[in-house]
């Protein structure tokens, strides 16, 4: 092979790996599914860890952050407690995905992500914020059906915590093995029913002075009935 052909081959290879142009929304979709959007080496979450994108509920998923279908033109987020979409995204980006810096309004990645969110929002008519009821006062609740509790585990907890007993398949080392952690509660919270600690963690996530990176489950994302069933599944 002549040395003259080498540059030609390299050019062919290069042209094969990057298209001449790409819709920013397409790149934004990649970012949506990629945990590396956050520069934190400790982060395991991507946007789709907590959100779905379709208008209808997805079978087998109860996403903590709900669907992002139509999100670009909503009037508010977190039940209306935030009115700016980028600020709302940055709550997730810095508090759950551990990014040291928020996304900027004019960054390339940030703009691409926005274009994808617009693509998820076919109607440009303003829409109200989706309800997001924070359960502030934590209380115990009636237990539910174990089989339903197992479904709830698979639809909510499993994406991060993996298997409830072994943690197999969990999203990262930081996601606790739930059965092991619950066993520590009598020591950490003497005199408090472990179920109540689980309820608090589910309802408050990383907020209310708890810490970590878990998002909180609003009453809309997880009903008290399903949470009661989950407690039964966990043997609590």
């Amino acid at each position: 092979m002549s040395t003259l052909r080498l540059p030609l081959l390299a050019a062919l290879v290069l042209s094969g790996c990057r298209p001449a142009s790409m819709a920013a929304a397409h790149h934004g979709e990649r970012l949506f599914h990629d945990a590396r959007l956050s520069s934190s080496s400790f982060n395991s979450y991507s946007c789709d860890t907590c959100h779905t994108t379709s208008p209808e509920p997805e079978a087998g998923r109860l996403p903590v952050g709900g669907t992002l279908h139509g999100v670009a033109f909503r009037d508010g987020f977190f039940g209306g407690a935030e009115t700016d979409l980028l600020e709302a995204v940055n709550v997730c980006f810095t508090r759950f995905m551990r990014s040291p810096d928020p996304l900027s309004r004019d960054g390339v990645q940030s703009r691409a992500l926005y274009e994808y969110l617009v693509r998820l929002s076919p109607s440009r008519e303003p829409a109200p914020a989706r309800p997001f009821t924070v359960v502030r006062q934590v209380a115990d609740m009636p237990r539910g059906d174990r089989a339903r509790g197992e479904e709830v585990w698979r639809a909510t907890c499993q994406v991060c915590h993996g298997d409830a007993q072994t943690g197999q398949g969990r999203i990262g080392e930081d996601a606790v093995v739930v059965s092991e952690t619950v066993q520590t509660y009598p020591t950490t919270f003497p005199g408090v029913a472990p179920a109540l600690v689980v309820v608090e963690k589910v309802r408050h996530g990383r907020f209310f002075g708890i810490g970590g990176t878990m998002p909180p489950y609003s009453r809309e994302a997880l009903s008290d009935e399903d949470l009661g069933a989950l407690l039964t599944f966990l043997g609590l």
Partner: protein
Amino acid sequence: MTLRGATLTPILLALLTLTTACPRELDAPPDLVFSEEPAWPVRTHLPPLEDGVVFVTNSMEDTVSVFALPELSGPAPREALRLPLGLSPVELEGPHHAAVDPQGRFFYVPLSENVPGAGSGPHGAHGTGTADGAVVKVDARTGLRLGSARLDRSPGDILVSPDGRTLYVSHYDLRRIQDVLHAGGPVEDMVSRLAVLDTETMERRAMVPLCPAAHGMALSPDGTRLYVSCLSDEVAEVDLTQGSFPVRKVGLGPGAGTVTTQHEPYALAVSPTTGEVWVSCQKGRDVHVLTPDPLTVDGSRRLTVGLGLPLFGELTRDGSALFLPIQAPDRVLEVDPATATVRRTINLPHAACTNAHQLRLLPTGTDALVVCEGDRVTPGTLVVLDVAAGTVRRSVPVGLFPDYVGILREGTP
């Protein structure tokens, strides 16, 4: 080079090129085609600043009620928007009082983290003032948060310097007093600090020890002195001309410097003409007058309110009257500053105002706004008061437990 090597070399080179030159999936391709301009558009807009904007902090629901100032002169004023405020969209953080940039570009709101009933669980009760407070800087046109700073527990009152460059925040840390009393510690350990912040960077320049449970603040007319009410029957005077912020304290009675108090100063107002300091006291239900240079209690003038708590009032621009809201029974006193006697009482009907907290005179001089806390379960109100006639023009519902009303106006200190 052999024939075999000559054949393999370009392939290896190509593979090497592929692995090094091809972007990782996360890297943005060089020719992205954007179709949305602008990205992340800001969709919230406050009413035009040119005409004036009135805002009320709702301390038990983490919002600000926003009104166009001209709207409040109309027959049926309506809230322009209810702006969420804070650092967390999940927790109640208790926006408490506010300060306005002299040019009307920003406003600053302390977050007290002291909201009864804000949340509970095995990790503890929340909103009890045990967490550090914060202050947020907000864009007056869009409501966007531009910055924030961490503070001590239970930030109390807040002021901006006349040049807009410095922010002062007091801390009404009652829990500190309780903790020290419980531990049998000295009063020195009860002292709360004054936060001095740079408004551009929102970095703390200084934390100045003041006194136990400092709260209401006011600046001298020339902006060189900061006066702060102290629960310890004292008024602290901070010299703002010196970088070390020296503090001098003036006692109001025999309990001064202790927490065995008789008066418990809570709110302040300063005369724009004489520089005299009017101190509203919660326990004594009285109002003391201090003359400046040097700050001295004027024992000849003191207003005893009788029933009710005197709170945050304001003197007219010409210094000829102090309008002072009194809580329960709710009313406004027009006080003659020369004698510290009541010229007139304007009663606030219960249906219009429950628990008057602060009065602010409107630039016209004929009307005033009174923010009324309500019962802290149902919405409070913003009252438009006809000062000359002594009547309530309007009472408009706002959010839960409102505790401050401010006016934003572009370029108008």
